[in-house]
């Protein structure tokens, strides 16, 4: 069974003449250990897809399943819990809390979700892989963009989620870093056995992908 699936999802915003059909019968599956890349031009529906995939928005129709658990028809609270447990988000801008040190970013997760997070040894391993083990007592404001992004990736991994959803992770990076981040996301999938889904319009990430999808005017097709 796939760890993550989106079935027959339609998303319609607005009513009457203002009605916009943004996603059309979208189907998608992701396996642990693979990196899926969803490409598409601006306005094609990538962010809407990610919002629904992450349980932030209930689709007009269709269902989303994570590890066999269906999102749709869940209360806001239950979706919060599922998100905290099963989905790691890597956002376009790194969005670390400015007043927490790197170590405290993880401690916050412990406060809210005491169980099932990475052990100390596992976290140290992740930090080392990402090359940020020296930065543990720094505030985000003291880090470079690339360092912040790696911290954000570690933060997304920390609750040990089944899937990692990344929204335009390279949008704020220069060329040389794009390749590094692509490899990083790929190694996340392989080494930590996660289903990694990356939404982007950055074609430079293609070489890292196991599966490639294209979003065009709300239709998702596998390449």
């Amino acid at each position, binding site marked *: 069974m796939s760890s993550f699936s989106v079935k027959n999802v339609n998303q319609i915003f607005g009513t009457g003449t203002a009605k916009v059909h943004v996603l059309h019968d979208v189907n998608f599956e992701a396996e642990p250990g693979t990196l899926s890349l969803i490409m598409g031009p*601006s306005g094609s529906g990538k962010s809407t897809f*990610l919002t629904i995939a*992450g349980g932030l928005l209930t689709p007009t129709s269709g269902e989303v399943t994570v590890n066999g658990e269906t999102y749709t028809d869940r209360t806001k609270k239950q979706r*919060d819990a599922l998100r*905290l447990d099963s*989905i790691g988000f890597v956002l376009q801008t790194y*969005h670390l809390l400015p007043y927490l040190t790197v170590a405290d970013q993880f401690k916050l997760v412990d406060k*809210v979700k005491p169980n099932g997070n990475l052990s100390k040894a596992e976290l140290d391993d992740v930090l080392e892989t990402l090359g940020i083990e020296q930065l543990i007592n720094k505030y985000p404001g003291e880090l470079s963009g690339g360092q912040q992004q790696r911290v954000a990736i570690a933060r997304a991994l920390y609750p040990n989620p089944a899937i990692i959803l990344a929204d335009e992770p390279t949008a704020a990076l220069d060329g040389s870093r794009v390749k590094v981040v692509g490899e990083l996301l790929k190694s996340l999938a392989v080494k930590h056995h996660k289903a990694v889904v990356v939404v982007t319009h950055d074609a430079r990430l293609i070489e890292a992908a196991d599966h490639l999808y294209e979003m065009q005017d709300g239709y998702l097709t596998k390449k």
Partner: protein
Amino acid sequence: MFLALKEIKKEKLRSGLIIAMIVLISYLIFILTSLALGLARQNTDAINSWHVDQVTLNSSANTDMRQSFLTAEQVGKLTKKEALIGETSVVAKAAGHKQLSAVFIGLDDTQFVAKNLVLESGHQVKQAHQIVVDDSLKLEGYKLGSRIKLNDSQTRYTIVGFTKNAKMNIAPVVYGQLTTWQTLRGLTNGPVASAIVSQNMHYKTTKQGTKTYSTAKVIEKLPGYQAQTTTFVMMIAFLMVISLIIIAVFLYILTMQKLPNYAVLRVQGIPSRVLVGATVSQSVLLVVSGLVFGTILTIITALVIPPAIPMAFDIPVLSAVGAGLLVMALIGGLIPIKSVLNVDPVSVIGG
């Protein structure tokens, strides 16, 4: 709490400024309250020191002890729980001293008011030409043994004792004998006192032309007393409301600035409850630390304030004011909660 503490720790300057603002607001309110209370007490200290429940006056005296006269017949028989008071305004004069407005209170030295008078130094009045005065007269240079004239009589009265907290109508009290009161008022025959004060809650007069009031009622009717206390209470109430608004605005701005961060936390599945908890506990932490420093400043002020300034630092009253401020601040801190609950995590997912 975790988030709140971490943020205060990181944003030391910002938190410090907000705490400083709350310190100043609470200090201002504490000092004003103490001044108001001090002034109110100067109206009533003497009467409060007698610990009486009922005051019987001439029924046509408009509840003013200074305007009341009771005849021996109106006074009738008294128990050990009643005492006679003869009150009148006087001007005290002595060579080398400024004239001083005071309140003369004549007592019968066999009755409880005179007997229970707590002296700081000296002894009780034993003769007609002896007086016990409020210790504020020391600040005017009077000592035990000083002789003063009252009004324009040529008689000299000797200060034989000092007592604390003897103030009436914001003037120092001069305690003497009831006969002295009669002399000062020019009453050789007829009225024997202004009032009967009683420690018996159920004391009630039956005599013609007299009326019994509760002590609270008599205090309320002191000239100017109510206008003064109402003014201060209104001032403090307005200050409370204004501080509510100021604190609320600051906490609101503080929270609004954090909404984008909160949206990210919502995306990550951190429940709203945690964010609300962080917001509220931050407000409480800031306000409580502000109140603590404000209290410390008030205590320091209480220790160094010159005795001539009428301030009364009453712990129950100041605690109530502090609690009021805390409640106000909590209300202020709750206003942005709605925005925290409505944070839209979708806004973080990039276009």
